[in-house]
């Protein structure tokens, strides 16, 4: 769990246009707060190792319970300099609890939190406040402080009891307000700004703290799409400049796009940790979230993108019906959706013959499903047709999307492709025909039901009758198991 995080450099990421022109470089404070005025008496500050290998945040074997209810146990976690770690997991998995333990606002039952190598418990609140800053999910401010005053409070751990704000403090506050894009309404009362603006004010306050580590709890939960991206790009830049950041994030796509490493927290412990590509898999997500998901690649960012499906009752891997070997014939988005949905339901899917570059072929790659492709606008080579036919033969069910295989009927198919697919269908044990109407989409319940041979409504009757006996028995079980607990 304490794997070294492979740092992805900023240039390899899709960063788009710099969202805050002119503030990017000068606003990102230097690597650490070594330059910050150290007015404190704490000698512990000298133990901070600015370039060494002590991780800014290290959590080992952390266990926390509220009363008799254990929330998390045995959590190991490590955030390196220059690394953004995303903490994901279902509601109530203990993400916020872990963050609070790191902040020191709750004391763990067991285990240890180290900040820059020193046990968090040994640090004074002031010293801890100079090592780690946090952006809470929300805040309830009962009095109408100005936005600027809230941001200035971020300097508290750097100030002695009688210190006023010096030039360093002024600079830090100004830069933080520019970076978080709150300078425009710096003189408005915090009670008068919107929820999203308030969230950015809290981010600015954390930035003004100029700590080597940042903790973010759902930093983008109430932000519009523009500010969500700006916020994460900002965090990304700070991290690329050498800070360490740990963020609890609900949105898996966002986590995948910005984090160097993802830690999946579920059922009170770490379920998986590592680079997004390694962690965000249908298996892990099913374990952690109990959801059927399809993990694809976001064409705009190249990062993994997760689509969750509602589990149809009685279907799927944990129902009594189990996983099926399914071959899909068809092209375009309807076929792509069928492949995604079936693989999310843990069926072993294969595809073909489809033209190279077809949407269904792309999804098949994401789903690790074997796909037989042929060059588009050309005759299907016989060996490809045979390959696809073999896959269909070994499959329990073949799903035909649209009018594939019917020469002259399927719009997207050339005559050669129709002919090849007709051969594939002919080799199938049982065929389920699904409407290929791109406008209507694919009815998931129908599809899953039909694959299991029971209640699906769009069976065309072309199926192999030999399987019918089982199907009736299975269909009777469909509604029994409830896997939602």
């Amino acid at each position: 769990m304490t794997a070294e995080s492979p740092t992805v450099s900023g240039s390899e990421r899709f960063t788009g246009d710099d969202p805050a022109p002119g503030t990017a470089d000068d606003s990102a404070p230097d690597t650490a707060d070594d330059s910050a005025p150290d007015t404190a008496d704490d000698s512990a500050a000298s133990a901070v190792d600015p370039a060494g290998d002590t991780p800014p945040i290290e959590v080992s074997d952390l266990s926390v319970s509220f009363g008799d209810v254990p929330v998390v146990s045995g959590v190991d976690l490590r955030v390196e300099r220059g690394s953004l770690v995303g903490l994901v997991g279902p509601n109530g998995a203990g993400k916020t609890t872990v963050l609070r333990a790191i902040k020191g606002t709750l004391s763990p039952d067991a285990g240890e939190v180290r900040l820059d190598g020193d046990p968090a418990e040994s640090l004074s609140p002031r010293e801890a406040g100079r090592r780690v800053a946090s952006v809470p999910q929300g805040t309830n401010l009962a009095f109408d402080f100005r936005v600027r005053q809230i941001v200035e409070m971020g300097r508290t751990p750097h100030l002695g009891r009688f210190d006023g704000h010096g030039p360093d403090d002024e600079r830090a506050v100004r830069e933080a307000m520019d970076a978080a894009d709150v300078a425009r309404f710096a003189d408005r009362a915090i009670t008068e700004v919107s929820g999203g603006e308030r969230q950015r004010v809290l981010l600015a306050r954390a930035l003004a703290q100029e700590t080597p580590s940042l903790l973010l709890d759902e930093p983008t939960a109430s932000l519009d799409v523009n500010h969500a991206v700006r916020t994460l790009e900002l965090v990304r830049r700070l991290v690329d400049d050498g800070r360490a950041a740990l963020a609890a994030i609900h949105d898996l796509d966002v986590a995948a796009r910005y984090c160097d490493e993802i830690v999946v927290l579920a059922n009170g412990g770490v379920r998986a940790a590592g680079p997004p590509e390694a962690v965000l898999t249908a298996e892990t997500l099913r374990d952690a979230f109990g959801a059927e998901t399809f993990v694809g690649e976001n064409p705009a960012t190249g990062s993994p993108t997760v689509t969750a499906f509602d589990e149809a009752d009685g279907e799927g891997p944990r129902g009594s019906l189990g996983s099926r070997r399914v071959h899909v014939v068809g092209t375009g988005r309807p076929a792509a959706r069928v492949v995604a949905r079936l693989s999310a339901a843990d069926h072993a899917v294969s595809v073909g013959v489809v033209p190279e570059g077809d949407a269904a072929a792309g999804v098949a790659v994401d789903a690790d499903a074997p796909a037989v492709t042929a060059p588009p606008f050309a005759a299907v080579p016989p060996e490809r047709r045979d390959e696809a036919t073999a896959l269909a033969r070994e499959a329990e069910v073949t799903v035909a999307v649209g009018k594939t295989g019917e020469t002259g009927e399927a719009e997207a198919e050339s005559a050669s492709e129709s002919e090849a697919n007709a051969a594939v269908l002919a080799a199938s044990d049982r065929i389920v025909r699904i409407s290929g109407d791109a406008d209507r989409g694919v009815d998931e319940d129908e599809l899953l039901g039909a694959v299991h041979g029971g209640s699906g409504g769009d069976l065309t009757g072309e199926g192999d009758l030999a399987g019918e006996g089982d199907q009736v028995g299975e269909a009777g079980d469909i509604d029994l198991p409830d896997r939602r607990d």
Partner: protein
Amino acid sequence: MSAWGRSAGWSAALAAALVAVVVASAAIGPVRIPPIEVVKAVLNAVVVPAGVETTPQWVGPLMLPSVDLAYRSPFAFPVNGVHEQIVVGVRLPRILMAALVGFALAAAGTVMQGFFRNPMADPSIIGVSSGAAVGAVAFIVFPVALSATLTLPVVGAVDLALSHGAGVSLFAFVGALVAAFGVYAIATRHGRTPVATLLLAGVAVQTFLGAVISYLQLQAGESLRRIVAWLMGHLSGAAWSDVAVTAVVVPPLFGVLLVYARDLNVMLLGEEEARGLGIAVERTKRILLGAAALITAAGVAFAGVIGFVGLIVPHMLRLVVGPDHRVLLPSAALAGGSFLVAADTIARAGSTELPVGIVTAAVGAPFFIYLLMTREVHEL
């Protein structure tokens, strides 16, 4: 301008206002005295230390030099002697007492509202006023002679005796602190004192003490009138000695509160965030609560339960100077002093003297309602 700069500006202005209110108040009464005469009389009363005289004195085998400060009056304006006596001997102690009590209650109220993040919080919220009332009422109903003779080595026997009035104050002070500590102890578990628990414990203790006060009133008989007068709040009978004691107790406590003003700002974000911003939350809470309870106790010990000052004055000033406690706390305290001096002037200006508590409530509440209706009040 920096917060402390703004604070100094507002403080200077409100201190000047307080001086003006004090002078005006000293001019008002059955005998009208021109304000200029008041100023002259007050200046005449000012003494400054001029030197130190020591006289050798033998106590047993020890030579203890008795040290005396020599004073001199720097001013000698010609003033009507009767006027001077009225101003300095009669009106000024009462007026200064009012200023100190108003200052203390408004400061404590400001801190409590911030501490509890609750606009309805006032200095009595943790049972201080109820405790003081029980102490005072108990002493009025069952007076005990507070006199003792201490026999100290070397010095010999020293007679200590407290007047009845001082006894009431002492019991009120002790009662206030016992109640506040009780509320704190009830609300504290495992070294943590959740603010919500503290608030509820305060309500419970206040209710209980209210029952005790009611019972004592039933037992009071002859002294019921004095009890009622004390409970309504009063400043009549304040002597220079009372002023001196209060003036020694209140400013240092106020200093403590002011030192923690910035921490109090951060505490308004919530305890968890305050911790994240480097505040030692539980320790800060103890210090703020302790200092606020003490300063309130010092105020109510002499003057009885004077309501509304600690509730309304902080609100009014928050509307004017904003929520930053570095500015708000001194501003509210000084304005509280002016407010209570003015209220007490009204209380004693009529043909029959009213308890000042009635005036503060009767004047303060409508003014507060006016503020609520005319200004946009955010979730204060």
